[in-house]
């Protein structure tokens, strides 16, 4: 517990500073965009209606979706930029709306007095209208601050570091202390910034210069402290280009490699495993953890990341948009050829294990109902509740299984992958969609049901390398030995160590690395 605490504490400077920079940049840009727009719109009712409608529409898009949408809109870019743009758009509505409302709420008499005694348009705006509208504008700014600081925790899946890294990683590895860290510091930061703005308003209203300077200095120190570490680590941008120069083609030493991973335990472990090998070969490694499933692929295609692990069935269905079933070998070869021809992406090979979707039930349920294959479920389909992660019910794995095995009458419930396995163990749902390598299948005494009609596609784990990185032979040389080196049992055991024994992904990767070396 205390080791866990120390580890989380060690991550704090990085996550908190990234969160501060991301949310403050987004807010600042939101202010710069919204207040001038609001000033213009306050005088033009039609512009006001149009801009407010547009901002309201943006606001109704859930934060996570808005963030994720930015990635394809920016041509597969991940990291700071898509998160920044999405959060900035998020901050627009409250600031814009309150600027318009605040300015329109000023008594016409006061406006006329200002004109009548000879203030120019600019003087009226700065000396009369903005000061009078300030309390309303500041209220909007405070709302925006709380929203943006909160929504910035959702920036993790698009590859931007934030306090959300605590939350996403914590949820996936069932590390509740990590989740708590993310929540507490995000809420604390929101409160601190909100109060800083409140004090700035008081300083402006009562003209307390000392207070304004004090808060200003505090905010400047906060930002400076958050930005400073970025300038102290050498830039990474040039490293990729350097890797393409012919002189560096011999090996990977001294080059920077960016490893992506999706947001679940197995991906963290494999990311850490690749990191170990690359660092042993002298490369510098940058990790982009917790990427959304399709975001990881987009980032690889655009070269934002150099390498990550995906699964044949996922690429087949969601990237290639193929719905027909295919055998393990055919799927792998067609996928590799397609990725290379279409995107120049190199498939280094299969790791050796499969992380398929399967349908699992508790042993008690299996014995009581006498089921051991999907075929046995159709008779009791009407009484079944099937739990699945949020994406599975939209995928062909579920629709095909449902149609072939007659599960149409069953009820479905979506929940986060974190809670699925215990829900099946505790009988809250009867059947779950499970990842076949998950350590909890064995630990919770669950049974994966047979698929006699071969509906469920294969999900062989594969190493994918970006088009740019594919031209760096050193990378293939270092990661090549992982091909065929990890079987189902090894992966399940590594996952179990993290999920149930509380080991870190890096620890599990070290164990896996040793096991590979012994083979």
């Amino acid at each position, binding site marked *: 517990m205390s080791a866990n605490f120390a580890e989380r504490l060690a991550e704090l400077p990085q996550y908190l500073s990234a969160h501060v920079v991301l949310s403050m940049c987004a807010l600042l840009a939101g202010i710069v965009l919204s207040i001038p727009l609001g000033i213009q719109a306050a005088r033009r009712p039609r512009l006001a209606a149009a801009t407010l409608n547009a901002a309201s529409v943006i606001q109704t898009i859930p934060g996570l979706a808005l963030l994720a949408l930015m990635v394809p809109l920016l041509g597969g870019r991940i990291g700071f930029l898509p998160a920044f743009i999405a959060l900035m758009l998020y901050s627009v509505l409250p600031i814009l709306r309150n600027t318009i409302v605040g300015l329109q709420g000023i008594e016409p008499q*006061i406006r006329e*007095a200002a004109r*009548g*005694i*000879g*203030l120019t348009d600019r003087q009226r705006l700065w000396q009369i209208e903005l000061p009078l509208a300030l309390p309303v504008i500041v209220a909007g700014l405070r709302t925006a601050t709380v929203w943006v600081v909160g929504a910035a925790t959702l920036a993790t899946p698009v590859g931007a570091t934030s306090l959300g890294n605590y939350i996403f990683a914590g949820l996936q590895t069932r590390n509740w202390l990590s989740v708590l860290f993310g929540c507490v510091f995000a809420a604390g930061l929101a409160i601190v910034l909100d109060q800083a703005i409140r004090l700035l308003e008081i300083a402006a209203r009562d003209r307390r210069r000392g207070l304004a300077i004090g808060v200003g200095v505090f905010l400047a120190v906060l930002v400076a402290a958050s930005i400073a570490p970025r300038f102290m680590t050498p830039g990474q941008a040039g490293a990729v280009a350097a890797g393409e120069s012919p002189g560096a083609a011999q090996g990977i030493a001294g080059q920077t490699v960016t490893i992506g991973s999706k947001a679940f335990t197995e991906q963290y472990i494999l990311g850490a495993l690749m990191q170990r090998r690359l660092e042993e070969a002298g490369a510098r490694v940058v990790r982009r953890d917790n990427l959304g499933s399709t975001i990881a692929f987009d980032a690889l295609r655009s070269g934002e990341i150099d390498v990550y692990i995906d699964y044949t069935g996922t690429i087949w269905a969601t990237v290639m948009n193929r719905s027909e079933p295919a055998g393990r070998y055919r799927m792998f070869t067609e996928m590799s050829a397609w990725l290379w021809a279409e995107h120049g992406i190199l498939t280094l090979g299969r790791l050796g294990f499969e992380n398929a979707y399967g349908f699992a039930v508790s042993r008690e349920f299996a014995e009581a109902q006498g089921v051991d294959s999907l075929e046995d479920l159709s008779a009791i389909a009407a009484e079944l509740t099937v739990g699945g992660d949020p994406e599975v019910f939209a995928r062909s794995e579920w629709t095909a299984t449902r149609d072939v095995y007659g599960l149409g009458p069953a009820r479905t419930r979506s929940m986060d992958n974190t809670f699925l396995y215990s829900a099946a163990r505790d009988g809250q749902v009867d059947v779950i969609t499970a990842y076949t390598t998950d350590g909890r299948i064995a630990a919770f005494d669950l049974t994966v049901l047979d698929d006699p009609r071969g509906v469920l596609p294969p999900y062989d784990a594969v190493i994918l390398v970006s088009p740019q990185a594919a031209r760096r032979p050193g990378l293939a040389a270092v990661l090549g030995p992982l091909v065929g080196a990890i079987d189902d049992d090894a992966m399940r055991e590594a996952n179990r160590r993290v999920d149930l024994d509380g080991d870190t992904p890096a620890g599990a990767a070290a164990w896996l690395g040793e096991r590979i070396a012994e083979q």
Partner: protein
Amino acid sequence: MIDPARPVLDIRAVCKTYPGGVEAVRRVSLQVARGELLALAGESGCGKTTVLKMINRLEDASGGSIFYEGEDIAGRDPVALRREIGWVMQGDGLFPHLTVRENVAIIPRLLGWTAGEISNRVIEMLELVQLPVNAYGDRYPAELSGGQRQRVGFARALAGRPDLLLMDEPFSALDPITRDSLQQEFRSLQAELGFSAVMVTHDMAEALIMADRIAVMADGEIVQHGTPSDLLANPASDYVSGLLETPRRQMRAIRELGA
């Protein structure tokens, strides 16, 4: 350069048609002599405020011309013109986020006076309207009575030493006792500082008591124009007699009570 014999303000046949097509003012001509108080009276909607707003170009005339200190205002920068002409509106129009001191200082500040000049002028003006700066200077408008606010309104309008003061129903929001004392104070202020003034009013009694001359408007036109005694002696129409009837009746009633 200022010729004392020339009218401060010379309005020649101005008209105003609002964008909606309302003919608010039709061929109005008026002159205001130096040091004089001209009252614009008439029923609601007859165009009084519109005439006033054309003088400092809050509205631009659709026809005719207006000369201020001998110069056609159409050729002047509206902002500079407004800073030379005092403006007092109904219900004070003070800026609620500025203190009394800052409200009064605003025009001298816009005119680019030095800090010393501004602060002296503020003290002087607040003395004149009987709100000593020590007691009132740092209050906000919300911390004053209606009468006190209106006084600050006068101080603000006069702080830049205007030759002409425009007032739109300056006393109408006050209770009768405050109104009466402020009316008296205003006349002595005008005698002391020597500015000219145009005052829009609903209240015929107020016009009779305060003004040197009264212009009565109806439906965008001037229907009679003269001194208070001219008007009382020879009302030009039933409309003017009607306007005079209210103060007359009140006077009679009071006299009978005294008898």
